[in-house]
C-alpha cells in the first residue's frame, strides 16, 4: 500500500518535472529580431514626465577588459571613455568583465537557457553570426542608420556588419593580419611566393632558423588568419555565396600541401600547429624564426616587437601567395559593440555607442588596440601619424580581404582546423579524401 503511495508521489513529481521541461524553452523561441521597444525606466513620479528625463537610468555592459588594470592601455582607454560617458549623460554604466574568448559563449548560453543578459556587449566580428543564430542579439539597423556617425563609417565596416537591412553590431576599429619580418634575417625582403619560401627555407635551415612562425592550431582563427588567405591567393573562397562550405577544393588541397611541406622540411616550427598563441610567438621573439604572422594587435602581445619595429629591424611585409596565384592576402576584421536581444536599456546602449563613436573618443580607443578606426574622420587624429600606421594602412589596403561569412562559420571553420591539423602533421593521410569526408560531414550537420 505504502509503496503504491510512494509510486504515486514519484509519478506526480515526474509529471511536474516534465511539465517544467516543456515550459522552459519559451524564452528560446524568441525570434532574433526584437521588434518591441525596450522597456523605459520607471519614472519616479508618473504625473510629471520631466522626472523621466532626470533619471537617465543604467547601462549594463559586458566588456573584455579588467578596468582596474592600469597597465593595459585598452582597459585604461575603455575606463576613460566610460567615465566621460557617465559624466556627460548621468547614465550609470554597470560594467562586467567577460573574457573575449568566452563572451559569445556566455551570451549565447544565457540567450538559449533564459539567463541574465546585459544591454551591451563587445564582440569580434567572427562571433556575431553565432550569437545571432542563438537569438542573442538585436537588429539595430534603424538606430545606427539614424545616428550622426553613420555616414562616416568606412565601407569595410558596413560591408561586414550590414546585410539586407539587418545590422547586429557596430564596428569600432578595423584590424587584420600582418606579416612582420626581421630585416637582418631577410635583407632582401620577406618572400611573397611559395617558391620564395622554399628557397629561403633552404638558406635558413643551414643557420638552424625557421622562415616564419604563425598560429595554425586547432581553432577557427588558424583557418581565418592562415589557411583562408592562402586559398584567396588562388582566387578561390572557402564558402559559396550562401555560406555553404567549399572545403573540398583544389585550392584547399594546395594550401594544405604547402603547409605540410613547410612542416616536414622544418621551415615552420611544429608549435605553429600544436602550440597555443604565445607558443607560436616565441620563435620570432628569440629570433629563431625570421617572420611572424600576427596582426595589427601584435604590439600588445609579442615581446619586443614595437621596439624592434621602431628601431627598423622589423618591417611589415607582403603575405605569401601560392603557386599560380597573383598576390597574397591577409584577413581583415572589425571589433564591435552589439545590443543583446533582451536588453532592458536599448536607448542607453545606443547613446553609449554614439558617444563612443564620436571621433574624439574613437581615435584613442582604436589607437589603444593598434587598429584603424571605423570612422574615416577619426583617422585624421594626429595619434595615427606614425610609420606603424602608415605601413599598417598600406598593408590592409593592398593585401586586406574581409573575413568570409557563413551562418555556421565558427562551427565549420573549427572542424576544418581539426582536419587540417591532422592532414599537415600526418603525411600518410590523403588530403583529398580527408577534405571530402569533412565536406560531407559539414553538409550533414549544418546544411541538410
Amino acid at each position, binding site marked *: 500500500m505504502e509503496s503504491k503511495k*510512494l509510486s504515486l*508521489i514519484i509519478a506526480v*513529481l515526474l509529471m511536474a518535472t516534465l511539465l517544467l521541461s516543456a515550459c522552459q524553452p519559451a524564452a528560446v523561441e524568441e525570434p532574433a529580431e526584437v521588434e518591441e521597444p525596450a522597456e523605459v525606466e520607471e519614472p519616479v513620479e508618473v504625473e510629471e514626465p520631466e522626472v523621466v528625463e532626470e533619471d537617465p537610468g543604467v547601462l549594463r555592459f559586458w566588456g573584455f577588459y579588467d578596468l582596474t588594470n592600469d597597465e593595459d592601455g585598452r582597459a585604461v582607454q575603455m575606463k576613460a571613455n566610460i567615465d566621460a560617458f557617465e559624466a556627460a549623460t548621468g547614465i550609470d554604466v554597470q560594467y562586467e568583465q567577460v573574457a573575449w574568448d568566452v563572451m559569445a559563449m556566455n551570451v549565447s548560453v544565457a540567450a538559449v537557457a533564459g539567463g541574465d543578459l546585459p544591454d551591451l556587449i563587445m564582440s569580434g566580428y567572427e562571433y556575431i553570426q553565432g550569437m545571432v543564430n*542563438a537569438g542573442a542579439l538585436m537588429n539595430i539597423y534603424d538606430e545606427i542608420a539614424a545616428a550622426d556617425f553613420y555616414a562616416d563609417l568606412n565601407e569595410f565596416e558596413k560591408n561586414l556588419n550590414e546585410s539586407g537591412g539587418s545590422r547586429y553590431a557596430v564596428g569600432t576599429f578595423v584590424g587584420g593580419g600582418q606579416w612582420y619580418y626581421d630585416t637582418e634575417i631577410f635583407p632582401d625582403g620577406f618572400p611573397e611566393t611559395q617558391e620564395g619560401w622554399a628557397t629561403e627555407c633552404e638558406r635558413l635551415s643551414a643557420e638552424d632558423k625557421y622562415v616564419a612562425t604563425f598560429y595554425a592550431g586547432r581553432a577557427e582563427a588558424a583557418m581565418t588568419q592562415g589557411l583562408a588567405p592562402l586559398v584567396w591567393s588562388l582566387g578561390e573562397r572557402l564558402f559559396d555565396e550562401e555560406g555553404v562550405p567549399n572545403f573540398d577544393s583544389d585550392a584547399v588541397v594546395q594550401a594544405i600541401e604547402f603547409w605540410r611541406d613547410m612542416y616536414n622540411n622544418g621551415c615552420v616550427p*611544429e608549435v605553429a*600547429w600544436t602550440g597555443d598563441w604565445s607558443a607560436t610567438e616565441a620563435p620570432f621573439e628569440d629570433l629563431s624564426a625570421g617572420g611572424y604572422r600576427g596582426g595589427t594587435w601584435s604590439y600588445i602581445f609579442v615581446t619586443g616587437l614595437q621596439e624592434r619595429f621602431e628601431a627598423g629591424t622589423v618591417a611589415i611585409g607582403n603575405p605569401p601567395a601560392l603557386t599560380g596565384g597573383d598576390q597574397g592576402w591577409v584577413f581583415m576584421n572589425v571589433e564591435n559593440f552589439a545590443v543583446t536581444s533582451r536588453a532592458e536599456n536599448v536607448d542607453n546602449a545606443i547613446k553609449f555607442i554614439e558617444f563612443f563613436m564620436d571621433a574624439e573618443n574613437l581615435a584613442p580607443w582604436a589607437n589603444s588596440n593598434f587598429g584603424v578606426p571605423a570612422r574615416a574622420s577619426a583617422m585624421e587624429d594626429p595619434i595615427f601619424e606614425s610609420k606603424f600606421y602608415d605601413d599598417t594602412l598600406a598593408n590592409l589596403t593592398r593585401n586586406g580581404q574581409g573575413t568570409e561569412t557563413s551562418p555556421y562559420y565558427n*562551427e565549420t571553420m573549427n572542424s576544418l582546423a581539426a*582536419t587540417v591539423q591532422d592532414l599537415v602533421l600526418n603525411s600518410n593521410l590523403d588530403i583529398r579524401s580527408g577534405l571530402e569526408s569533412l565536406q560531407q560531414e559539414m553538409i550533414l550537420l549544418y546544411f541538410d
Partner: protein
Amino acid sequence: MINRSKAYPYLLVAPAIIFLIVVTLYPTLYSLYLAMTRTRMGVMEFVGLRNFRVALNSTEFWQSMRNTLIFTSFYVLLTTVIGYGIALLLNRKLRLTGFFMTIIFLPWVLSEITTGVVWRWMFYQDYGILQNLLGPLFGGYRFIARPEGAMGIVIAATVWRSISFAMLLLLAGLQTVPKEVHEAAAMDGADGWKAFWKITWPLTLPTTIVTIVFMTIQAVNGVGMILSITEGGPGRATEVLGLLMYRQAMQFYNFGYAAAISVTLLFLNLILAAFYIRSLNRETALAG
C-alpha cells in the same frame, strides 16, 4: 490521525526529493527534450530523433566514441592498478607516510587547466623539457604531433593527476581489512602474495569495484585536461565524447546536438555502472 502519521515520513523526505528533482532529474529530462530540438537563427524547432541520427552517421562521433573507449580503458586500468599499489605501500605505515601522501595528493589539488597547460608545454618541440628528454630516445618522435603520442600524453597526465583519488579510496578499503585476519593467515603459513590473493584482494574487491566505477565515470565525462593539453588534437586523435559535446554546446551553440551526445554519454555511463554494480553484487553474494 493515522493518515497524518503515514504521510509524515513522506513530508520529511519531500525536501530532499524535490531538491534532487530540481538539480538532477529536471536537467536530465530537459537534456532529453533539448536533444530533440534544433536552434536556427534563434528559433528552436522540434526535430525528433534527427540529432541522434546525425550523430550515428557522423564519423566525428564514432571517432570520439573510439577515443573515449581507448582513453577510458587505459585510464581506469592504470589509475586502479597504480593506485592500488601505492595504497598497499602506504597501508604498511611506512615512515614519512604523511609526506608521501602530501606529494601524491599535490596533482589532485592543482587545477586541471593549469596542469594540462604545463603538460602541453613539456611536450613542445624545441622548448619542451620532456620532448627534449624523451624524443631522442624514441628516434626523434614528436609526441604531441602524433595521434598515438598525443593520446599517450593525455592518458599519462590524467592518470598522474587522478592516482591519488583512486589510491585514497583503495586505502580506505584496505584499512577495513581486520589485522586479525592477516595474523591468523600468517600463523597458518599464508604470507606475501598468497595472503594478498586469498585475503586482501577478496576483501577489498567491493572497494576496488566502486573505485573502478568512479574512475570510469570520471574518464567518460572528462574534458578539462584533454582540452588544455591537446584540445582534442592532433586532428581528432584525442577528441573524446565529452570534448565533442563541449565543443558543440560551448563553441558552436548547437545545444540540441550536444544534448544528443550528452544523452549518449548518459547511456554509456549507465551501461558501465550497471555492469560494475552487477559484478559488485555477484562478488558480495559470493563473499557472503
